[in-house]
């Protein structure tokens, strides 16, 4: 069969192609090249040396940060999904059409303010003499060290991804065929059990994609682990800044960045495969 590339089609796909090349392929290619450069006397030199890869991969601190980041992002994806589900479920099934539109609008509002601003405002709540500790003091509790903990980092991650996860979950929940739910009820499946037997399997694609987005956002996040987690434990994004600051080691930072990209590609591939497992086209 002959393949035609129509001028019309080409014209309209061209901007996308250019965009992809300019903002994705070229920087990525540069990053790959950079990871093989060498640094001598605080100056980078174009080179082809695997020393950066060997150095980084043999450092326990790198693997520690990798493990921490992966666990934090995985934990955030799970926690956010679990917390967001009742919310999106209620919006999808318990609200009227008008109320649902308002709820969606309210979920979009957080995106109006900068993430950094929202994270800073959490400091006011979580710090040792912050709002939460003052309120707990009224009933004779605390103060508790809430800021600069993993818990605070999680709060930041939730702030970042919760509205998005709710929206993504919501879009898969509202398209569930209601008769499937009725059919389950009709076959002696109670309300709660129907959520697990019918609603979640029906919305599997959307729920997985939502969790994946949360993982992607939090895996590369720098703001929450620094400003709420206090930079301890070190995550890969913190390690990148540290590496660039200490002795102009941009090539080593490139190694970290490329490892992160590779990780996200693998995770995304596995997640999508899981989401569509057992579905025939």
């Amino acid at each position, binding site marked *: 069969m002959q393949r035609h590339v129509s001028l019309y089609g080409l014209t309209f796909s061209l901007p996308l192609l250019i965009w992809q090349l300019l903002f994705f392929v070229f920087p990525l290619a540069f990053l790959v090249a950079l990871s093989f450069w060498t640094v001598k006397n605080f100056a980078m030199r174009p080179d082809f040396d695997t020393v950066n890869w060997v150095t980084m991969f043999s450092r326990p601190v790198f693997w520690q940060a990798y493990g921490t980041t992966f666990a934090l992002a995985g934990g955030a994806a799970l926690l956010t999904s679990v917390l967001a589900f009742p919310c999106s479920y209620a919006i999808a099934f318990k609200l009227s059409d008008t109320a649902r539109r308002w709820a969606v609008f309210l979920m979009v509002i957080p995106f109006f303010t900068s993430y950094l601003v929202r994270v800073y405002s959490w400091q006011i709540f979580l710090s040792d003499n912050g709002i939460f500790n003052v309120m707990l003091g009224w009933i004779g509790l605390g103060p508790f060290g809430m800021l600069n903990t993993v818990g605070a980092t999680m709060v930041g991650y939730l702030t970042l991804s919760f509205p998005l996860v709710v929206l993504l979950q919501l879009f898969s929940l509202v398209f569930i*065929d209601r*008769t*499937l739910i*009725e*059919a*389950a*009820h*009709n*076959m*002696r*499946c*109670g*309300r709660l*059990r129907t959520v697990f*037997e*019918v609603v979640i*399997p*029906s919305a*599997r694609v959307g729920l997985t994609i939502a969790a994946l987005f949360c993982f992607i956002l939090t895996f590369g996040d720098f703001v929450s682990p620094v400003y709420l987690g206090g930079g301890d434990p070190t995550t890969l994004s913190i390690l990148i800044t540290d590496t660039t600051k200490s002795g102009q080691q941009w090539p080593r930072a490139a190694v970290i960045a490329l490892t992160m990209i590779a990780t996200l590609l693998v995770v995304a591939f596995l997640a999508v495969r899981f989401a569509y497992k*057992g*579905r*025939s086209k």
Partner: protein
Amino acid sequence: MQRDTLVSFEGVVKRFGTFVAVQKMDFEIRKGEFLAIMGSSGCGKTTTLRMLAGLEAPSEGTIRLSGKPINHLPTWERDTPMVWQSLALFPFLNVRENVEFALKMRGVGKAERRRRAEQWLDRMQILEFAERNIAQLSGGQRQRVALARSLVVEPEILLLDEPLSALDAALKVRMQAVLKNLQRETGITFVYVTHSQSEAFSMADRVVIMSRGRIEQIGSPQEIYGAPRTRFVADFLGSSNIFTGPVTATSGQGLEISTKDGPVRLAGPVAAMPGQGAEATITVLDTKTHLSVARPEGDVNVLPVRVIGEEFIGATATIYAETDSGHEIKVQKSHDELASLPISAGQPLFAWWSPSDSHHVGAA
């Protein structure tokens, strides 16, 4: 023999806001019968079925199953499995898992579940597709999965909401036979909602005809076809010529009404005889109405008509004609019977029938 009552509707009303979907409904479903509920869309037939399944709560009245009121029971505590118009098969489960679902919900063990599911798949002749996805099945196969899924729990009653409406004509007839046989063999009470007269009349032991939330008539297909009880039913079935007019004469042996085109008589006993001068409606089946070129002699109803046209339906044809006042009359005949008649538009003929074939329906 009087059969046991399985379900009874007692003064059941269903309102959605100010809209009354079902008004004051009283009827019974007998154990082991095939009952069809028929009517055009919006007549309340599906609402009736959904109330029985527990998917809608009645606004008033009581629904009893085996004598016990079930109004307060949520659907998951009733044994009233339903087959949906969309079938509502679970796309994320394969065929066997779909059929096992209801058993799983009842806590039946894995091995037993599998055995019973496969038994029903075999009975529905789809065992070979047990491990397939729903998306890989044809319409007819899906239908069988839906039936197996509902029947696997061996219920006393099965509710069906227009399950055949998505199938093509040949498959529809095939599935009608499957359903009818299944019902006969299992003895399970089937309640079948449809807008299709042919589906209802070919399968059901009794038919309930509904209109605007009200029951118009309940009876066997023969009873309803031969003797529509209301003007609505006669109109809805579309197989009768209908005449309405004031009563001019009554006797123990029948009645006569006056129409714009002349008197129409009925010979035979009449239940609830209307009074002199009251409005009455007389119907006659299109198959019992005849046409002739010469004015027929004897004790018959005769109306002069002009042919409008004819419609072929397989072995028979329906001739449409109208009287001088514009009243439409249809006559259904085999092609042989029509061979001798000059059928062309505008042709004057006489429509006639025996007064003993006339039938009186209640007013309105």
